[in-house]
């Protein structure tokens, strides 16, 4: 009960407290405190010093432990920088948005934790709906027309996706007709145990619906458009939160059904669907990287690309699956870094267009260099983690039965790298034509601190490669029936 109250009830409680507290600094301190203990507890649970015993529809396994850690890590850093971010004066309307910022953030933590820890499809679905509802007003933080449009599109598309996922869950109950599971509650663990008895036709339908429905949230092409709009128009901490943790939570739902499908005859079919989804995402990222002229959108497409790689890795299985698990961790860390620095640039230049940004390295030396480094990190340059995880995924592709996927992926990734690099180097190095920018030395702020810590973390995890993490991922692979 202790872990339940810390992980799920306290965020909810603190959301309630934030509603009544008018003092902004107080709200911030409470949220930071909550996120810190949340992070601490999830770390303790992950390492295994504390055995969990969650009530109702909740439980932990290796997969949810990993995802919980990723979530609370991202969340902690986002909350940490939020205060300094919110202090910046932006549009007059966004004062309205600030009032509910921490309330919604806390609610997001509550819903997302519930989604990750749930052992029941109904519970997962409700919690996933909660995350969408809490994130949507945050996207609308700037209170301008673009933000409104982005919020509307995101909310609408994702809610249709959620409805689709619900249909998928209903199909899952249907597939259990005539098996011992009939009329039982939809516990993942029970379904995984009895997966062989499920009706394959309905299981297939269920997989498709859940995958397509949740891919609006994951941002897998061709359902990615609202996700891109939302990520590129929300304030940077929120964009980091979405890229780093919300998409992963949605991916969890797909992985759960994938786990159920795994011992059945539908497995091959599900793998094909995942591979198609992953390749399509890469293709879309590849195409849009050529014409994108908004650097936050570019980062959003980069998210699509990396989620595509992860989906591809899960679909291919074997070593690629392990790589995908690592990639989830590294990608979420890296995306947070990228969005934080992009937020700094946006604040200084007041534009999201690439053309309006120049000579970042001179005007904003800290952010500029950090952006450069994190770009290198996301493009899988060693010693950053993404290099190792992508290597693993590529190796898995090479030794799978479809090695041609590797060639396609490499080709697409190369051009994504070139185009992204071209855009970013333009921003960093081009001579400044904009005379009226106030030239003052950039002060080292908490955002830079967070960015540096995360970058170090990105290298440290990859180089040190803690045994506990490796074991956990091996356990996950075992749960998914992957022989290494």
């Amino acid at each position: 009960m202790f872990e339940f109250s810390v992980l799920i009830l306290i965020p909810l409680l603190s959301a309630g407290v934030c509603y009544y507290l008018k003092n902004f600094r107080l709200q911030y301190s409470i949220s930071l405190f909550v996120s810190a203990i949340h992070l601490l507890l999830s770390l303790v649970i992950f390492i295994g010093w504390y055995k969990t015993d969650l009530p109702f529809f909740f439980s932990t396994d290796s997969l949810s432990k990993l995802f919980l850690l990723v979530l609370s890590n991202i969340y902690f850093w986002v909350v940490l920088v939020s205060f300094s971010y919110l202090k910046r004066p932006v549009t007059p309307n966004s004062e309205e948005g600030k009032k509910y910022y921490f309330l919604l953030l806390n609610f997001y933590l509550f819903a997302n934790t519930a989604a990750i820890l749930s052992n029941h499809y109904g519970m997962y679905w409700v919690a996933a709906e909660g995350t969408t509802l809490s994130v949507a007003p945050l996207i609308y933080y700037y209170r301008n027309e673009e933000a409104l449009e982005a919020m509307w599109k995101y909310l609408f598309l994702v809610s249709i996706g959620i409805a689709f996922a619900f249909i998928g869950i209903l199909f899952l109950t249907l597939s259990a007709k005539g098996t011992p599971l009939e009329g039982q509650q939809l516990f993942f663990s029970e379904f995984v145990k009895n997966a062989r008895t499920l009706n394959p036709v309905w299981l297939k339908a269920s997989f498709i619906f859940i995958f397509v429905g949740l891919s609006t949230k994951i941002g897998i092409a061709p359902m990615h458009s609202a996700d891109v709009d939302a990520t590129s128009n929300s304030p940077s901490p929120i964009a980091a939160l979405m890229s780093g943790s919300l998409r992963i939570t949605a991916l969890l739902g797909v992985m759960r059904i994938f786990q159920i499908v795994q011992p059945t005859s539908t497995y091959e079919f599900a793998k094909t669907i995942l591979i198609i989804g992953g390749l399509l995402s890469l293709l879309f990222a590849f195409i849009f990287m050529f014409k994108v002229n908004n650097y936050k959108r570019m980062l959003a497409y980069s998210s699509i690309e990396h989620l595509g790689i992860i989906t591809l890795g899960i679909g291919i299985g074997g070593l690629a699956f392990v790589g995908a698990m690592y990639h989830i961790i590294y990608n979420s860390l890296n995306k947070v870094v990228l969005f934080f620095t992009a937020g700094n640039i946006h604040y200084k230049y007041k534009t999201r267009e690439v053309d309006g940004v120049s000579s970042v390295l001179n005007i904003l030396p800290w952010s500029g260099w950090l952006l450069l480094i994190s770009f290198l990190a996301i493009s899988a340059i060693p010693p950053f983690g993404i290099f190792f995880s992508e290597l693993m995924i590529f190796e898995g592709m090479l030794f799978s039965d479809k090695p041609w996927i590797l060639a396609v992926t490499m080709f697409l990734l190369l051009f994504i790298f070139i185009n992204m690099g071209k855009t970013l180097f333009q921003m960093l190095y081009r001579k400044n034509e904009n005379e009226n920018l106030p030239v003052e030395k950039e002060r080292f702020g908490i955002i830079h601190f967070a960015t540096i810590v995360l970058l170090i973390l990105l290298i440290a995890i990859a180089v040190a490669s803690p045994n506990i993490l490796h074991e956990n991922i091996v356990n996950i692979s075992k749960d998914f029936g992957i022989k290494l």
Partner: protein
Amino acid sequence: MQNVLSILFCLSLFYLAVTSRVKAYVSVLRFQGILLTVLLVFPFINHFSVYAFILPATLFVVKVILIPRYINKIILDLDIKRMIEPSIQPFTFQLLVIFSMIVIFVASNILSKSTSIETIPFASGFSAIAVGIFVIIFRKKLIIHVAGFLVLENGIFLFGTAVASELPMMIEIGTLLDVFVVVFLMGIAMNKISSTLSGFDVTALGRLKD
């Protein structure tokens, strides 16, 4: 009885495909809400229990009274024009609806051979889902999009009663989709997305693109 209600449900979908008035959409939503309530009450007529009546009662209050009222209020407040502004020929739209319905009925009949499902409610629910999506795709007004989402949701309900009747919890959870609807409506009302700025249709939602 379930079949009869499902058929009436399908008829309301046809009406939705023909009509071009915003008000008609609201009354169809109301009608569908009543149908769903009756559908959920019906199994409990013989063995009465208070608990079983909570869900139909909620459904009735939300789907028949509150949401249609709220939509009507928004229509009045924001002075929304009464035409739905389709982006496709109505005739083509109708053909699309008929065709997809045929496909869905035939497909669900084939599927019902492998598992015992109630074909008619199943297929009607699925048709409603399809029609809801068509409404969202082929209509420009945002308030009609919300109506389309509601139709989709009603379809899920009908479909849920056909599929998961032994698992009432899933159907109860489904009511949470109404939360989205309320959020949409609040979004429309609070941001005053009215037709004055020609901003009430998706054609104006075109700023964000590559």
